[in-house]
């Protein structure tokens, strides 16, 4: 536990010593604001919600798309930088287990996203000032958004363990994440329905972050949705450890 925290602290310092964390937080806040207020017309729709209005997705509804590019940008350095600098050799010859290193790094990058998400609190204040939203639903939205970011990050951890090149790690992570979005994105599922059995479409959609995030952000905290995100993270981090072990074994 102590070792995980030591590594998390180091990684967090690394994020804030380089501009990565600040750039991510600022761009995330700008884009979240832009989509909420300009695209979704927060002030004009006259509905006190942060999830879904009758016209378009609201605040949380844009998160899967924002995270698609921003989260891999945060996580891409996680392991590829270690490999490029050669510090992975130092880290893994320390008296720690590889799992402590994997978790420590993952938690640090997750914390960066969590900070960015927490800094969207003015939106929450605004919607409470203007109307009477269901705050339980909003809390659900935040939890779902954080879980989704964690799932994307674990995918990025995995791709970044594969290569010493951060750009490659970024692109592969974006592609995998995009697949996980599109598998349950209504326009895509609508198209699939025209030529595949409904159960196949449901099966594919069950793999999508959209399907699971959708219900959480409506305020339905279903254990199956939480289990989905947790298992994506567990699977990807496990794969990360396998990749690192295979890389060391040569």
């Amino acid at each position: 536990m102590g070792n995980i925290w030591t590594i998390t602290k180091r990684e967090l310092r690394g994020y804030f010593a380089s501009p990565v964390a600040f750039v991510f937080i600022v761009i995330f806040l700008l884009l979240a604001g832009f989509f909420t207020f300009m695209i979704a017309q927060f002030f004009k729709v006259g509905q006190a919600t942060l999830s879904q209005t009758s016209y378009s997705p609201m605040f949380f509804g844009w998160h899967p798309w924002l995270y698609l590019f921003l989260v891999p940008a945060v996580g891409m350095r996680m392991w590829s930088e270690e490999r490029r600098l050669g510090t992975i050799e130092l880290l893994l010859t320390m008296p720690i287990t590889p799992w402590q290193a994997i978790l420590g790094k993952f938690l640090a990058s997750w914390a960066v996203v969590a900070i960015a998400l927490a800094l969207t609190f003015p939106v929450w204040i605004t919607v409470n000032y203007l109307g009477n939203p269901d705050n339980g639903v909003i809390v659900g939205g935040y939890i779902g958004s954080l879980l989704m970011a964690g799932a994307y990050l674990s995918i990025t951890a995995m791709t970044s363990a594969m290569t010493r090149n951060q750009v490659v790690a970024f692109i592969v992570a974006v592609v995998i994440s995009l697949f996980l979005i599109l598998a349950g994105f209504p326009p895509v599922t609508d198209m699939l329905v025209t030529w595949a059995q409904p159960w196949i479409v449901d099966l594919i959609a069950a793999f999508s972050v959209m399907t699971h995030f959708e219900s959480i952000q409506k305020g339905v905290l279903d254990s199956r949705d939480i289990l989905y995100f947790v298992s994506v993270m567990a699977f990807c981090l496990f794969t990360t450890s396998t990749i690192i072990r295979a890389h060391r074994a040569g």
Partner: protein
Amino acid sequence: MIQVRDLKKNFGPKAAVNGVSFTVERGEVLGFLGPNGAGKSTTMRMITGFIPPTEGSIKIGDHDMLENPLPAKRLIGYLPENAPSYTDMTVAGFLGFTAELRGMSGDAKKKAVERVIEMCFLENVRHQSVDTLSKGYRHRTCFAQSIIHDPDVLVLDEPTDGLDPNQKHEVRTLIRRMGEKKAIIFSTHILEEVEAVCSRAVIIDRGKIVANGTPRDLKMRAPTAGAVLVQFTDGNGADVAQKVGALPGIDRAEVVGERPLTVRAYPHKRSASEDTARAINELAAKERWPLQQLHVEEGRLDEVFRSITLPDTKKEATK
């Protein structure tokens, strides 16, 4: 402290390390020599637990590196090749981080960081970020990391690579001093370093140990070891060589330089070098050759190194 037995490592079909065994006790400094790609770094990476061996066993102290890596790793300080460190941290921050991973905190951690900063002359740069440092300082920072927990076992992969002559001297002195109480393995390309620092040297070539002994023993394996080198201010080379070569107990003598005239005489037996030298001295006095210098050659490590590690085909070609 370090026990390595039948270590093998294959990368695909290629055997990088092929059956390496040795031990290093406390108080020993083992020099690891070999051409590039001989398997030095791979062996060190296996000893420190970074890569698992294909076959063989590694024991550090009483702990098996493969079955029980954490206690084994606790005993080791490791300086990897190229001395990597986190470039976004300050020197003191980086050393503090490694101290924490070594299980130190609070006062103990502060003291450990201070100690290695002083030992490795990092005082001037302690608050500087690693990516602004010159190569020598980076190297010393990583070296400081390896001794932060005062380990019983030190594994140093080319600890003097990229340092200037003064820094090299400092690091060698440090290694020699620490070698009195620790078990140290270090690899190097620089042969004088082995003579200056090591109590024992191992030459490794194409994944196998081809020589193992004290630097003195190894030097004895040089073709010129035990030969008598004699120098005259003046004289007829062919005549001198012929007369020296005719002395009893001498195999052959050859002229290796004119002006001053230098002749090298090879005795039948290496143990007879002293007698040979005396005989040549007497001959020179009798013939009134102007003797300038006469000594028994110790042999040079680079000759041994070349004769052992040059691939056979190349050896044929140079003949």
